[in-house]
């Protein structure tokens, strides 16, 4: 039932695509005014200085990349003439460089020409060591970015790079204008308030006025490259309030046309939808809620620089039978229904999207199997104690289970605690404020990275459609530890030679079909080792008014990737 509703949501989103066919007759600015509500208001229009999704989305209708992903995760040339590939010679045979060509006749909204120099400048701006650019990792592993001529840019990599579509691709890597930002490099970046609040772009809209953390007003870009677009003349991008208020404004009062990120309880959404003025948009990307299992000993008795490091393997969780039992005891269908309703679906894989990369081999986790879990623990030598909690060699099967403070996560914790108690595992629950838990302060003992607990729950995702960097995170040596100032994304301190070797192969492999195979293999190794327990794949949830047409929800790029094509449906 749930899955059917989720699918219907996806189908509904796709059904909008044919509507675009009739869009040709519309004129620029003919749809009038659009009201967008982001309950987390936009703070700045310079996505490089913010890193937040809300700023990235708002900036995406002004600043554009060379190429972006469409709603199916396919690369689409945007400012570039075409996507460079091995076949058309855009990507070098040795995978060491990629050459992009800009579209002819591109102009900025101020009427000046877009040149290869602007692209090179964007690279220099974001990689400046003092700039604190949030998307600098997009430019990692690049040796140089150079303008071959006014319209051609060559990016040379330090190593063979089978996926060269990271720099200047997608909403997180847009092009800024050299003339405007020339004096805003490095430490001076934050001083350029005027530039940061109203960047000049190539997109369908220009910033007319930004009140930070409140509202952005956009007007259409008269110089936009598609003659009859954008259809909306002006946009008010309101911010503030809360998710419930935003949903109410679309579904019930009709004050707003589009609301972003409505992470609300399933019953609240259902009630709001009954208002009848709007429609919920759900689509699934790589965001997945999981329980990470610590392979190292987080015991407080250990000294701080040894606690939670590979020097001390976890006394309980290094036994795969215990990890499997923990997974088997969980009813993922029920969790999804309670926590996310139509906006989530149960997950059994590390890589849950794009569809072609999802392994079909792990779906047995969908069925809760308490008996099997009990049998596994019996086999592992854990005997039931007098209070029902298992004991082995005088040690109780007790786990510290931490997560961030959030209503859904606390519901999940309580349910999972109950299921684990049924199999004789005692979970001590702890929740930590999100600003601490997801913080990067290396001296804090409570961050998810430091992971001084036995198991922890959070959601993670990756950028774009290529999971290679995400898979890379679980390699040996990538674990956070004192020597790296507790940086690194191998959260569970997983270490498996077979996995590492396979990843190295993936990182060299340019052939798409083989890459897909390797991703699935890596996923299977990781998941079948019960290295972490996938729980729920979470969708991107937005809402649009019934009178708003042309919206195609896109989980691979900005939700506003095709903003120019949005229009008002006339009654």
């Amino acid at each position, binding site marked *: 039932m749930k899955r059917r509703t989720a699918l219907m949501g996806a189908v509904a989103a796709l059904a909008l695509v044919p509507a675009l066919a009739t869009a040709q007759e519309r004129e620029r600015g003919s749809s009038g005014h659009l009201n967008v*509500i982001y309950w987390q208001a936009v*703070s*700045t229009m*310079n996505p490089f*200085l*913010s*890193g*937040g*999704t809300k700023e990235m989305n708002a900036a995406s209708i002004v600043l554009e990349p060379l190429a972006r992903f469409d709603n199916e995760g396919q690369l689409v040339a945007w400012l570039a003439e075409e996507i460079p590939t091995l076949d058309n010679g855009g990507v070098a045979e040795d995978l060491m460089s990629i050459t992009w060509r800009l579209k002819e006749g591109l102009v900025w909204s101020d009427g000046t020409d877009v040149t290869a120099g602007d692209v090179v400048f964007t690279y220099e701006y974001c990689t400046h*060591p*003092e*700039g*604190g*650019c*949030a*998307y*600098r*990792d997009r430019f990692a592993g690049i040796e140089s970015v150079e303008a071959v001529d006014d319209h051609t840019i060559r990016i040379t990599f330090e190593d063979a790079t089978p996926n060269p579509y990271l720099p200047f691709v997608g909403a*997180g890597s847009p092009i800024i204008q050299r003339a405007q930002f020339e004096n805003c490099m490095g*430490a001076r970046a*934050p001083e350029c*308030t005027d530039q940061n609040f109203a960047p000049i772009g190539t997109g369908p809209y220009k910033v007319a*006025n930004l*009140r*930070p*953390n*409140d*509202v952005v007003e956009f007007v259409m870009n008269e110089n936009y490259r598609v003659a009859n677009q954008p259809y909306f003349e002006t946009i008010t991008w*309101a911010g*503030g*309030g*809360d998710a419930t*208020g935003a949903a*109410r*404004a679309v579904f*019930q*009062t009709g*004050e*707003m046309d589009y609301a972003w990120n409505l992470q609300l309880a399933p019953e609240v959404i259902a009630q709001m939808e009954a208002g009848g003025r709007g429609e919920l948009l759900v689509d699934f990307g790589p965001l997945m809620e999981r329980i990470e299992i610590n392979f190292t000993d987080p015991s407080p008795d250990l000294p701080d620089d040894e606690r939670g490091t590979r020097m001390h393997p976890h006394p309980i969780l290094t036994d795969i039978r215990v990890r499997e039992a923990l997974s088997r005891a969980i009813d993922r269908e029920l969790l999804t229904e309670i926590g996310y309703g139509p906006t989530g679906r149960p997950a059994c894989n590390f890589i849950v999207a794009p569809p072609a990369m999802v392994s079909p081999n792990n779906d047995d986790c969908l069925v809760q199997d308490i008996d099997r879990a009990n049998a596994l623990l019996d086999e592992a030598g854990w005997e039931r104690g007098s209070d029902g909690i298992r004991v082995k060699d005088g040690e109780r099967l007790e786990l510290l289970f931490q997560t961030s403070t959030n209503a859904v996560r606390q519901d999940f914790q309580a349910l999972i605690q109950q299921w684990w108690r049924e199999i004789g595992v005692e979970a001590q629950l702890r929740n930590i*404020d*999100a*600003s*601490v838990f*997801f*913080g*990067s*302060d290396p001296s*804090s003992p*409570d961050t998810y*990275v430091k992971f001084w607990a036995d198991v922890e729950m*959070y*959601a993670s*995702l*990756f*950028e774009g459609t290529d999971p290679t960097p995400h898979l890379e995170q679980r390699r040996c040596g990538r674990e*956070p530890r004192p020597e790296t100032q*507790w*940086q*690194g*994304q191998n959260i569970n301190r997983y270490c498996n030679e077979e996995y590492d070797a396979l990843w190295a192969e993936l990182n060299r492999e340019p052939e798409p079909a083989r890459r897909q195979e390797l991703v699935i293999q890596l996923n299977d190794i990781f998941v079948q080792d019960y290295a972490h327990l996938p729980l729920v794949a979470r969708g991107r949830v937005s809402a649009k008014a019934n009178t708003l047409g042309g919206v195609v929800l896109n989980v691979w790029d900005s939700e506003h990737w095709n903003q120019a094509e949005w229009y008002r449906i006339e009654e």
Partner: protein
Amino acid sequence: MLTYTLRRLAFAVPTVLIISLVVFLMLDMAPGDPTSSLPLTIPMEIREEIRAALGLGEPVLIRYVKWLQMMVINEPLHMIAGATGWDIAPDGPRILSWQTRSPVGDIIVQRIPQTLWVVGLGYVFGILIALPIGVISAYRQYSWFDQVGTFVSMVGFSVPTFFTGVVFILIFSVWLGWFPSMYDTTLSVTDWDSFVRQVSQIVMPVAVLALYNASQISRFMRASMLDNLNQDYVRTARAKGMREQTVVMVHVLRNSMIPVVTVIAIGIPTVFTGAIITEQIFRVNGLGDALIRAIYASDWPMVQTITFIFAILIVFFNLIADVLYGILDPRIRYD
């Protein structure tokens, strides 16, 4: 009277300084990290660079002195320059918000008008409603008017604004469709139409706040009136043959106002601090909204600055209350 005022003033300056230091140190020690709200796709190394770019690397005392200098010299000059158009703004560094990377002062100047209008009107209406209710309730104690007044103020006082706010939205926006549920912050009043729209969007938040404030103040008014109505001087006034109206409205009311005026004066800073919850529910972009969002985002420069301004206001209005008290009641001037 003058020495009394001066003495109070002399206490105020160190108080404000100590508050600023405490606020600064507390926030500095608070857990929380400005990069924690970024998507997890941004790696830790990059987060570390962002933190460095925000100036988190320097020792706390240096940051405090820098901040204080900017706070008491640069920012006020910029605010005055912004408000008047005079060319007095210095070139030096300004306090930058971590969320927006823009000067905190500019954001505060942008936000103050909305807060003053919405929360201020809520306060003014609250007082206007509360005073007559308090007087009549006390004069006709235990009458049906008093009972109803007591009931309403108990409800208004005990039901939180986040509840009344949502109830108002449900009734007046969703069901009746009379008022917008969201405050349009871009609306500027230029003609009759936009004035009507401004009024209709301000009605609900003001009503919610007025109800809450009125409940509080009317209780004070009533209690204070009751204290005075039984005093000997009231009986004397009546015995002298004064008209009842003169007795109540001149003699009793005037004396009863002393504590109420203090309560009202001390309550004024809360007008500036904004009704955080109400502002959020109705999406009014006031100071309270800015503060709560800054706290969520661990935007310490913003939190420090707003809190410091609140501290100054609170100290200032306490001073005013003290002075008013001295004017209204000569007995407590210490000279």
